[in-house]
């Protein structure tokens, strides 16, 4: 394999990693966050539905003992949508729950993320979502930390 091939491959991997992060954050966004970001876009691109929005189930798996063989824990509702922009870019949105509007908005932002001209705007949205989640997680972690048990030893007797 030549070094150009290698770097092309790692670039593709990097792009996939970026998109993976973007889709994960879009899944964790609230509908209000996505709607507000959509409303601020001036020249809204036309998006044709390719699939959905449709609600279905994903079987959530666990592992025996936490790290052993997989088993089926139970299902979760998932709503997904795919859209196509005028230039043919396809975007996918999917997240837990039953919100079709959110799935469609997530799919649209996923498509916009793949467009060099729009990518920066989507990055701004993604950073805001990531920051909001980090704040919430940190607050929860601090609240949990306040319930951590500090053991102390009772010293009895004179010596």
């Amino acid at each position, binding site marked *: 394999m030549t070094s150009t091939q290698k770097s092309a491959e790692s670039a593709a991997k990097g792009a*996939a990693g970026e998109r993976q992060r973007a889709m994960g954050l879009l899944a*964790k966004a609230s509908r209000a966050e996505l709607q507000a970001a959509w409303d601020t876009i001036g020249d809204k691109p036309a998006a044709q539905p390719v699939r959905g929005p449709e609600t279905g*189930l994903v079987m959530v*798996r666990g592992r025996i003992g*936490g790290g052993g*063989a997989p*088993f089926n824990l139970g299902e979760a509702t998932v709503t*997904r949508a795919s859209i196509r922009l005028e230039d043919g870019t396809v975007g996918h949105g999917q997240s837990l*729950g039953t919100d079709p509007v959110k799935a469609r908005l997530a799919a649209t932002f996923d498509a916009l993320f793949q467009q060099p001209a729009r990518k920066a705007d989507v990055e701004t949205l993604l950073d805001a979502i990531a920051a909001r989640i980090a704040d919430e997680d940190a607050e929860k972690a601090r609240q949990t930390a*306040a319930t951590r048990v500090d053991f102390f030893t009772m010293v009895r007797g004179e010596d």
Partner: protein
Amino acid sequence: MYVAVKGGEAAISNAHRLLADRRRGDRSLPAIGIEQIVAQLGLAVDRVMAEASLYDRALAALAVRQARGDMIEAIFILRAYRTTLPRFGYSKPVETGVMLVERRVSATYKDLPGGQLLGPTFDYTHRLLDPSLLGDEPVDTALERDEPGEPVMRVSDILAGEGLVEDDGNLPEGHVAGDLTREPLEFPMARDLRLQALARGDEGFLLALGYSTQRGYARTHPFVGEVRIGEVEVELDMPELGFSVSLGRIQVTECQMVNQFKGSAKNPPQFTRGYGLVFGQSERKAMAMSLVDRALRAEEFGEDIVAPAQDEEFVISHSDNVQATGFVEHLKLPHYVDFQAELDLVRRMRREYEERADAVMRDAAE
């Protein structure tokens, strides 16, 4: 001859209207909202999700409201709903080791990496009715403390470091995780399928069985290695993209039960384990599940099967409360024809009995 009987349409329709009226109750009181149920009756919602085997807080809350708070009815409604949806796929196994922990306690180690984190627990409350909750008094916000950023290490990994505990639970290479929503139950079953059944099993039933093992009906000598509650990521492989994506997070409760030893000529003695994993915050259920999981491994460990909690077919066949309520409650539906036949039979037997008695009387008189 079979005579079909019709009727009751008006009565049924009126009964449902009456049900809706009673469900709403006193109209001078505000109606309870789905968001309020999710926020303020969260553990009821979690139980419905766990036993319906469907993670969706809003739909579970709707089911609780629709069922007037009858948990099994709510579970039934949510189960029925899930059958209307297509299956998109199977998630990657959730990673409970990197859970965003909001509670973690261990009964086996006092000081352990991550510490004892009590979280929002009923433990150590006095179980006294709180009159302040009669009204709507303001509630203090939770206290905060700097979080040391120390990973919350799994207790099973601590024990495994010394080689004193069995591994997490592997199945033979090439084993495909069974799915009881797709295949009929067959006994004996592998541990993965049992765990799926237990995860959706009735909390009360599993609690009673777990309790029975503690009282000596299949003693397993359990310790809570740890219980942890928190959020885990649900990831789904996207074949069209060539990578997996996160769909969001769910809350789960995990219990690692550490049980007494097993060893053999080949293997040195080591602790055995029972495992519990449940949707939502449901510590009692996760603990009961892990007790029953361990008890059901009796055959694997060559233990005598002497108690109900060790009997796989008994436990798994009766753990599903939707099936159980369906079969028990069907008894109240019309059995007029069946019963008529029984009535005829008992009348004939009675007649024969009386004839025999009369004959004995006549013989005695002669």
